[in-house]
C-alpha cells in the first residue's frame, strides 16, 4: 500500500498569487480525482508533489518520506504527465521513450524494449512509433505522455488534465489504461471535467481557489445531495431574477431552451421538477457555496 499525505500545504508564488492554501489530503492506492476549475491550483499541487516546486509551508509525505527534503525519494516512483509538455525535435516516440526509460532506471535492455512495446500498443501508438513525436497530433501526444508516465515501476502516477482536448474515443482509451494500472498504485488525476471522475475515481477532492472545499467518495457526495436538485425552464431575461431568488447552481442549454438547476432542501414551486443528482451538480453546488463563504469571510 502506498500513501501520499499532504499536510497543510500552502504555496505563494513570487508574484503574490496564493495557489494553494492549507491543503491537506491523504491518498492511498487507487484512482484519486482532483476536480477544480482553471486556476484552482491543481497543477501547482502536482508540481509540488513532483518536487518541481517548493512549498511555502506544509509538507508532502510519500510512503513516509518528506519529499521537500529529498525529492528524489518520490521521483523514483513517479510517473508524471504534465498538463502541457513538448518534446525535442527530430526524435521518434521510440527513441524518446527509450531515453526516458533509461532515465527512470530501466536498464535491462530486454525489459525496456518489452515495456516500451507494450506501452506503445496500449496507447495505440505502435504504428507511429518511428515518427517524430514533435509532429504528433494533440491526442497522440497525450497518449505518448501517458506511455512515458507508465515507464518503469511507478507507484504514484500523476496526470494533469489529461483528457482536455481529447475526442471521446481517445478519452475512453486513455482512462481505460489508467484504471487498469490503478489497483496497485496511486493514480492522481486532475481535471475540470466532472465526467472523468465519476467513471473512475473511488475518491476525490474538489479544489477551488487553492483550497480543498470538499473531499470524499463521489457516490457519497452524490447521495448527500439526493433529492435536493431541482430543474426549471427559464427565459434568458428572467435568469437574473431567478438567481437572486434561488440558489441556482448551474444552467444548461438544451435544444435552444435554457434550464436552470437549483439547490433546495424541498420543492419550491411546481415549476421545479426533481432530477436525479449527478456529480456535476455536486461540483457546481460546492463551488458555489465555497465562493459565497469565501466572500463572506
Amino acid at each position, binding site marked *: 500500500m502506498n500513501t501520499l499525505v499532504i499536510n497543510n500545504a500552502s504555496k505563494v508564488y513570487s508574484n503574490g498569487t496564493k495557489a494553494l492554501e492549507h491543503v491537506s489530503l491523504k491518498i492511498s492506492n487507487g484512482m484519486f480525482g482532483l476536480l477544480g476549475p482553471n486556476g484552482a491550483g491543481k497543477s501547482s499541487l502536482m508540481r509540488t508533489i513532483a518536487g518541481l516546486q517548493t512549498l511555502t509551508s506544509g509538507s508532502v509525505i510519500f510512503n513516509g518520506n518528506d519529499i521537500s527534503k529529498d525529492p528524489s525519494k518520490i521521483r523514483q516512483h513517479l510517473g508524471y504527465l504534465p498538463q502541457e509538455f513538448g518534446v525535442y525535435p527530430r526524435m521518434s516516440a521510440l527513441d524518446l521513450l527509450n531515453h526516458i526509460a533509461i532515465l527512470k*532506471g530501466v536498464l535491462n535492455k530486454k525489459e525496456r524494449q518489452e515495456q516500451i512495446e507494450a506501452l506503445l500498443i496500449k496507447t495505440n501508438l505502435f504504428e507511429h512509433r518511428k515518427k517524430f513525436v514533435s509532429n504528433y497530433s494533440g491526442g497522440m501526444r497525450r497518449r505518448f505522455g501517458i506511455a512515458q508516465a507508465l515507464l518503469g515501476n511507478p507507484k504514484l502516477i500523476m496526470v494533469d488534465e489529461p483528457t482536455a482536448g481529447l475526442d471521446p474515443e481517445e478519452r475512453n482509451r486513455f482512462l481505460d489504461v489508467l484504471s487498469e494500472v490503478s489497483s496497485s498504485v496511486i493514480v492522481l488525476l486532475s481535471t475540470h471535467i466532472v465526467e472523468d471522475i465519476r467513471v473512475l475515481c473511488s475518491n476525490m477532492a474538489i479544489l477551488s481557489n487553492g483550497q480543498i472545499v470538499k473531499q470524499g467518495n463521489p457516490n457519497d457526495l452524490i447521495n448527500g445531495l439526493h433529492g435536493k436538485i431541482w430543474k426549471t425552464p427559464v427565459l434568458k431575461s428572467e435568469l437574473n431574477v431567478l438567481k437572486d431568488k434561488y440558489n441556482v447552481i448551474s444552467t444548461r442549454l438544451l435544444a435552444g431552451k435554457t434550464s436552470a438547476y437549483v439547490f433546495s432542501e424541498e420543492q419550491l414551486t411546481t415549476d421545479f421538477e426533481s432530477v436525479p443528482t449527478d456529480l456535476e451538480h455536486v461540483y457546481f453546488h460546492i463551488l458555489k457555496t465555497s465562493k459565497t463563504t469565501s466572500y463572506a469571510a
Partner: protein
Amino acid sequence: MLLKLIKFELKYHFKQTSYLLFTTLFFLSGVYLGIQEGAINPENKYNIHLFCSLISLASVFQIVFQTGYTVLRDTMNNSAQLIYTTSVSKFQFLYSRYLGIFITSSFSTLLYVLAIFTTILIDPLHIYSAETIEIIDFIWPWLIIILPNVFILTALLFTVALFTKKVPLIFFFGILIFILFWVNNFNIGSPFTGGKLVVDEQTIEKVALFDVLGLCSSYEQTQFWSPLEERTERVKFSGTLAFNRLIWGSLGIVLLLVSYLSFSFKLSESKKGRIKKHRFFKFKSKKQKEILSTPYKPVFVLKKSFKSRLKEFFNLVVIDFKITIFSKTFILLCIVWVGMLLSAMLHNISGQDVYGNVLPTTGLLTGLILEPLAHIGLFLIVFYAGELVWKSRQYNFNEILDAAPTQNSVLLFSKYTALFLLPIFIIVLGILTALLIQISFGYSTIDLKLYLSIFYFGGTSLFIYGILSLFIQQIASNKYLGMLLSLVVIYGLGYGLPSIGFQHPLASIFQLPKVGEGYSDFIGYGQLTNVFNWMSFLWISLALITLLISFKIYKRTSEHRFKNQLKLIVTNWSKLQRLLVLVLLGFVCISSVVIDGKLIPKSYTDDMSFRENYEKNYAKYKGYPLPIVTSVKTKVLLRPKALKYTVEGVYTIFNNTEKPIDTLLVTARNKLDQFSIEDAKIIHKNSALADVKLVVFDPALLPHESKQMSFKTQKSIGDFELQKDIISNGTYLQNSAFEPRFGYIKDLEIVGKGERKKRGLSLEQKKEDLKTYKFENTTRPKQDFETWVTTDKNQIPIAPGQLINQWSTDSTVTYHYKSEVKTDNNISYFSSNYETTVEAYKNVSIEVYYLPKHNTNVSEIIKAAKATLDYGVANFGNYPFDHLRIAEVPLHWKFGGHALPGTIAFQERFFTQDISSPTNGINQLSRVVIHEIGHQWFGQKMSPAPGRGGNMLNETMANYMEAQVLEKMYGKAMVRRLANFSRRRYFNFRSSAEIEEPSLHLVQNETYISYRKGFVVMQSLKELIGEATLNESLKELISSNQKQESARSIDFINIVLSIVDLQEQSLINDWFKKRIIYDLNITNVDYTKSENSMYMLEIDISTNRFETGLNGDKSEINTDETFTIGFYNKYPDDNTALPEFRTIRLKKGENKTNFKLKDLPKYIIIDPMVTRLDEDITDNIFEIDDEQL
C-alpha cells in the same frame, strides 16, 4: 498609428536588458577610448574616422540581439496568432519593428561617437594638446559609415529573421558578417587587422566594394594619403566608398521590399509526417502477433547504481550532442569554420607576392587553428551553453525530464559534457582540415603530438568559459540575456582590470596566455608551456569552484528565482563540499603565489617609475662626451639547459672626441657583478632595476687616449620568463642584452604626453631642424673582437670571427673566435643543436647551421650566397672574411635576417619556405640571403659614420644588392615585382609616419624611406647612369671608407654627382635630397600597320611630378627626364614575358610619342621596372585591343 507603434517599439527596446547593456558598453568604450592615451589622435581626422567607424562591428551583435528579440518575441511568447489577427497592417507591423531596431541601434552608436568626442573635449586626464576639436569630424563617420551600416545590417538581419524565424540563424548570420569582415580586412592588409600586407590595387578595390561595413572602402580611399592629408582631410563620400554605400544601401532597401512583399500574417508550418531515418535504438523486428500480445507490466527498478547513472549520463549526453550537431546552425557553423581554416591555411601557405610560399608545417597549421579557435570557440561555448541549459524548457520537456529520478549531478554533468564535446568536435574538424592540406600538398612530416596539443592549448580556455557560461545561464532569467551576460562577464573579467591600468599577470582573470604564434621548431612552445600550465591550473581551480557552486544551486524547479539561488550559494554546505572548496581555494592560492613570484617584473623599460627617475636624475649627463669601444674580448658561458649565462668582458675604451672625459654615466640592463675602468672610480650606483653607475676618471680620459674596462654579469632565466636571449635550444644572445652602455640613454625617456604630465616631466620636445642639417666630419674607429663561447655539449656555439680553436669537456664545448679584421659592434652569440653544411667557394667557406629537420632549403641558401658573393666581389671588391656563416634563429625573432660580421642570423621561417617554384612571386628566401650578405659590404666593409643618412648606405644598398642579384638569378620580372612592392610599401608606411618626412640622404630609422624609397631610387639611378657606373661609384665609396666608420650618404651622392652632367645632377639631387613623387599615365595608344608590316604606335602619356615639403604640403613641379617604356607580349609579371624596352624623354603634361615596332605588343607600360614613386601605377599600363584593326 505607425508613430504609436514605433513609440511602442522604442519603449520595448529601452526596457530590454540586452539593449541597455549594449548601449552602456558602447558608451563606456567611447569614454574608455577617449581617456586612453595613444588610442585616438584628435589631430588626425583619419584616425578619428577609423576609431568611430569601428563601432560598426559591435553593432552587428547589438542588432543581432535586437532583431532576435523583436521579430521572434511573438513566436516565442506564442502571441503570434493574437497579433497576426489584429487590425494592424502589414506595413505598419513590419516597419514599426524595423524602425524600432534601426532607431535604437543608431542611437547607441551615436552615443559611442559622442562619448569619444566629449571625453576628448573634456580631457579629464589632460592627455591631449589639440587646439580645436570639431564635432563634425566625429559625426561625419557616423553619417557616412555607421548609420548606413546600421541601416544595412538591420535590413539584412531583419530579413533573415522574417524568413527563417530562427534565432540561431540570426546569430549565425551576425557571426558570418563579422568573419567576412575580418577575412576581407586581412586579405587587403588594412589597418584594422594590424597587417600591412601589400596587395595589388584591383584586389583592394574589389574588396572595398564587397565589404558590407564599408571599412575596407575607407581604407581603399585613404591608403596612399600622406600624413598631412590624414590630419586635414575628412574621408570623402565619393569613389568606391560612395559606391559601396550605395550598393549595400540599395540592397538594404530591396531586402526591406522583399520582406514586405513576401511577409504575410501566417504561422510558419513545420513539415509533418517525416519518417525518421537514424535511430539511436534498434527495435528488434518481431512478428506482429507476438508484439500485439505483449502485456504492459511495471518493470521493477533497482536502486540506482553507479552503472545505471553512467548509462543515464551517456544517454543524456548522446541526445544533447546529437540534437546539437545535427542542427542547421551547427552544421553551418562547421562549414564556416572549415572554410575559414582552409582559406587561412591556403592563404598562409601560398603567401602572396613578397611573402613567398611556405611549407604546410604542423607548427604553422596548428597556430592557424589555435588563432581563430579562441574566437569561434568562445562564441560556440557561450551560444550552446544557452541552448543546452534552456533546451528542455524551450521544448517544454523540462517537467518530464525534471520529474525523472535522475540525479541532479547526472543531469548537470551531462550538460557540461555535451557542451565540451562541441569544441572537441570542431578541434577535430580543424585537425582533419590541416591533415587534408598536408596530404594534398604532399607534406609528410606530420607531428601528431603537436596536433593533439591543440586540445590542451586551445581547449583549456574553452573549458573554463564553458563552466562560466553554464553557471551564468543557470542564474540568468532567459537564454539570450544569459549569452550576453556570459560574454560580458568573460570579457569583463579578462580585460576589465588591465584596461583600468591594473597591470599584473593575474589581473586578466580566466585568461590564459595565447600560444598560437609562440611555436618554434627549436623549443616547441618553450617556457610558454610552463606559464600556460600554471595559469591553467589556477584558472581551472577557480572555475571548478564555480562548477561546485553551480551544482549547489542547481534546482529542478520551473520557478527561477535569483534570490533563492544566491541564498543557496551561501547556505547548506556539506562537509565534502566544504572540503572540496577548501582544496580548490588552496590550489588557487598556491598557483597565484607561484605565478606572482615567478612572473618576474617586466624589464626596466616597462617600469614607468624607473624611467621617470632615470630622466630626473640623469638627464643632466645628456651631451657629455663619451668614449667608444675599440676592442672587445669576452668569455661567454652559455648554459642553455639551465637557462643561465655568464659573460666576462674586457673592453678597450677610447676617447674619440676632442674633449677630455671626466664623468661617465654607465647603464646596463642586467646587474653587473663586477665592473671597473682603469683609473676611474664609481662614485654612485643604483642597481634596483637596471644597473646605473656614475664613474669619474682621475685623471681624465684625454682625447685619443684608451683605457681598459672590465665587467662580469650573469643572468639566470626564471621558469616563466618569456625572453629570447637564452633558451634551451636556439639561443641568440645579442651583446646589447648585457653590455654596459655609455651616457644618458634618451630612449628611456617616457614618451606618452599624459604619462609625462602626470609625472611632472617637461613636455617640450626639441625637433631636429632638417632644413639646416649639416654633415659633420666624424669618424669612428672600428673594433677588434675576440671571444670564447662555451655551451652545453650537444650544441654548437657560434659568434662572429675566425674559428681559432675548439675543445670540449664532459658537459661543455668551447669555441674560440677571433675576427681577422676590425668590425662594428654588431655581435651576437648563438647556440643550438645545429646541423652543419659547409661548402668552400672561392676562398670563402660558406657554412649553414640549421635544425636537423630544416634541411630542405639549405641548397637554395648556398646558391643565393654564391650568387651574391660573385656579384659583390665582381663589383664592390673582395669579401672581407674567409667565412660566411648563416645560422638559423628561432621564429620569435621578428627580423628576417640580421647581419653580423661574417655571420648572419637567419630566421627559422625561411627554412620552412616552399621554394619548389623559386621563380614565382618574389623568392623571399634568396632575397633575405642576398640582403644580409650585401651588408658584408654595405655595413661591415664600409660602415657609415654616426649621424643621419647612415641607413641609406646600409639598408638602401643592401636592397639594391637584392635587386641586382635576384635579377641575375631569376630575371627581371621578379625585380619588377620587388620594386612594385617597395613602391607600395613606401606609400603605405608613409601614411602612418610623421608629417615631416626626411629625404633619403637624411634618413634615420624610417624603414619606409631607407628600404622602400631607397630601393626605387637606386633603380632610377641605375637607369640614369647605368649599372657599371653606379657600381663603380659604390666601390669607390667602400674603398675610401674601409678603416673607420666614416662613410656618409652625402659622400656617395657627391661621387655620383661628380661624374654626371648638370641635368642629371639635378635629378639625382631631387631623388636623394628631396621628396619627389610622380604621376605617370598612358592615356591612349593608337596603332597602324605599315606596308613593310611594321606597327606604328602613337602613345599619349601624361607626366607629372610633385614635391612634398617638410611640412607635408604638396606642389606640382616641372618634369623633363628620360623614362623607360616597355612593350610586353604578356602580362609584365609573367616570367616568360619577353619585353622590349625603349627610352623616351617626357615633359610635364601631355606627351605624344611614336614608336615603330616589328610585333604588336599586348601591353605597353611606362616605367615598367617601377623606378619612380607613383601612387597609382594601374594607369601606367595600357592593354592593346587586337580588335582595333
